[in-house]
């Protein structure tokens, strides 16, 4: 269990690490180039992992709907914009505001789709996040 807790923490730390490194590359090239290299290098790593444990065309890939394939395109914009933001806001405020945007849109989506969740916790979370965003302005 401790190993799993460490892995979950590491998952978040790896997000901060890649954003910091990509932000540095963007300072000396462009945000789009940093996103390009992030995807190409990530693809190389994942190709090795898939070679070791997986398949390049698993069962189910052929029947996956169109929406399942667009995540990578959205990711190009996400990584590029993150690289642009980090020198401007710093790592902590960038991470905080990205999470804020993700949560606000996530709750909106959950409510639209009628997902099961504890309403007061959702609304309390939204209120706290909005307060945090308001405080982030200098």
């Amino acid at each position, binding site marked *: 269990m401790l190993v799993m807790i460490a892995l979950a923490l590491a998952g978040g730390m790896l997000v901060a690490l890649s954003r910091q490194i990509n932000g540095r590359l963007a300072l000396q*090239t462009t945000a789009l180039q940093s996103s390009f290299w992030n995807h190409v290098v*990530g693809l190389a790593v*994942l190709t090795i992992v898939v070679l070791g444990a997986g398949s390049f065309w698993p069962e189910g890939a052929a029947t996956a709907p169109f929406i399942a394939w667009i995540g990578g395109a*959205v990711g190009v914009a996400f990584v590029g914009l993150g690289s642009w933001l980090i020198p401007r806001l710093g790592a902590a405020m960038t991470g905080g505001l*990205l999470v804020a945007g993700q949560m606000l849109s996530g709750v909106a989506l959950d409510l639209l789709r009628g997902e099961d969740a504890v309403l007061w916790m959702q609304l309390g979370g939204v209120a706290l996040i909005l307060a945090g965003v308001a*405080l982030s302005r*200098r």
Partner: protein
Amino acid sequence: MANPDPITPITRNPAGPLVILAALGTGSLLTLMLLSNSTMAAHTSALYSSFAAHGVGSVVAAFALLALWRLRGTQKDRTVLRRHAPLWAYLGGISGALTVVATSLAANSELALTGTLALGIVGQMALALIFDATGAMGIERRLPSGRQLLSLAAIVVGTLLIIFSRGMS
């Protein structure tokens, strides 16, 4: 990590409303991205979903770069000739790719998705604060103000509430 090679900081209007809105908008892209990637993961696996996203992303980014270069083609005289970025600055994708491996292992344990997400937020914010305080990777060193720390605390607690609101019903 200890700021060996600081780069000219970008200090214009650090947290103006437009940059904040841009960050919130970028964050909402993540909701869309996760919706797509989790659909792929449900049809295949978390690993394959990330592999496919990186593959599609590589192609899309390559086309976007080519399109930009064609548009700018002749005007190559960029006034600011920056030094070459160090090799490690090109390797951010490694930790991005390993994220999937770490989180999918943790999400399949007793932690489940809820615990994995909650701990991930904590890990991400803790390391980000360390990066800011040390000026890691040559990005401007900065100490958050009390107001910013309060802002981050409100966002993190709000986020944890939302994450657990899904896991508890």
